């Protein structure tokens, strides 16, 4: 895998790893000092995995935007859905199960714009629309697909009548259909 985009991003992500460790999560894989095969001073952070993460930790609450995965252990499906629906973001989510009923219930009750079922990154095809709910999207239309077309166009409705020679007279009432 490649580096992060800037030195600042590298520092920020490393800071989150420090914070997760200090908060008591189990650091299973530490990417802070990766061995890399690129020349120079690239902005690399290696894959990082935390286990036993709790929802008060910054590695859980914040969008890290780096290669840091957090495992939160739960007892029940309901807790999982509550966690997702309590989150201020609503971009994407995925469920991994072989139970069709569980998947069907999940897709119905999560407050999220894009759902994967045994698919981790459910980015919609071009002819559907990409977009999240809650703090993941401000506005009324998602990107591309028919919603994209609607965003980039305005509707116009034209009502037309081509007059007969017999037409005449004024009517100041609200137009009614006859």
């Amino acid at each position, binding site marked *: *895998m*490649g580096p*992060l*985009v800037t030195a600042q991003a590298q520092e920020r992500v490393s800071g989150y790893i420090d914070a997760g460790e200090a908060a008591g999560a189990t650091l*299973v*894989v530490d990417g802070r000092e990766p061995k890399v095969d690129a020349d120079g*001073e690239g*902005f690399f952070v290696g*894959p990082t*995995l935390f*286990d036993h*993460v709790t929802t008060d930790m910054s590695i859980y609450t914040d*969008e*890290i935007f*780096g*290669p840091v*995965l957090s495992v*939160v*252990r*739960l007892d*029940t*499906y309901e807790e*999982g859905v509550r*966690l*997702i629906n309590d*989150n*201020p*973001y609503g971009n994407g*989510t*995925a469920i*991994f199960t*072989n*139970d069709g009923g*569980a998947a069907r219930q*999940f897709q119905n009750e999560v407050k999220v714009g894009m759902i994967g079922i*045994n698919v*981790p*990154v459910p980015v919609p*095809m*071009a002819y559907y629309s990409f*977009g*999240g709910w809650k*703090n*993941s*999207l*401000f506005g009324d239309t998602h*990107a*591309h*697909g028919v919603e*994209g*077309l609607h*965003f*980039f*166009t*305005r509707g*116009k*409705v*034209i*009502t037309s009548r081509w007059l007969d020679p017999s037409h005449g007279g004024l009517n100041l009432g609200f137009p009614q*259909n006859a």
Partner: protein
Amino acid sequence: MATTLHHWKSGEIFEGNSGRFSDVTNPATGEITAQLALASEDDVNEVVAAALATFPRWRDTSLTKRTQILFAFRELLNARKKELAAIITSEHGKVLSDAFGEVSRGQEVVEFACGIPHLLKGGFTENASTKVDVHSTRQPLGVVGIISPFNFPAMVPMWFFPIAIAAGNTVVLKPSEKVPTAALWVAELWKEAGLPDGVFNVLNGDKVAVDGLLMHPDVQSISFVGSTPIARYVYETGTTHGKRVQALGGAKNHMLVLPDADLDLAADQAVNAGYGSAGERWPSAISATSWWPRSSSGPSDCGPVTALGAATWGHS
């Protein structure tokens, strides 16, 4: 000496007058590869004016002609997307296969937009009232602004501009100042595909450029992707200035693993989602449950996820 990158206006490079520049780096080596011109308010006004001047002509270009240009762009992009992928890797840092994948997903929106005549068809009602007919149509907005993030230098702009252009709008794209070259490459490709000068323009810059677009009276809409605080700012500022806005913000994407899941699959997919593009594309958390009422399976312990995480580390 690093090269200098500017803006793109009316089918050619536009240097602007700001005198302000920022560094573009290669994240894999830390090297500064270019100096990027950051737009002034005057530069914003000039680029928007060019897009506005082109709008009536492009709006009135026939659907047949517009569609032919979209097909030409698609063919050029398909033939040369390795060049674009290499540009993305050099400025963003994602691996080449990942960059190529991003271009391919963007290309799919170009292909969708090639069907624009069908998408723009309206409805028609004959004799709605006696001798009165009603029909509907959809018309382009005018100059549309796109403000895109660093994590997808090609795909995210392509979520928007193919449809915007196909529908008859003219575009001002403000790419992330960290990854500006992809947008300039795309601008040249549009020119080669036969798009009239001034339909697709690139404005490079920072907050001056963003605010310039958000507040400009001749910009009709803003499509934005970035972090939630900035998305909120873009939405509030853009709508206050009378624009249509779609502002996509941040995320924390949960992956819920039930005890009956195929754990090897779930683990592989977690590694893909969490570590691909160095985690700069699909911010993730894994929630594993040990109990689901419909299942009689035993508790899940996330074992394969931790094991695979360790393996990936060893190979990095």
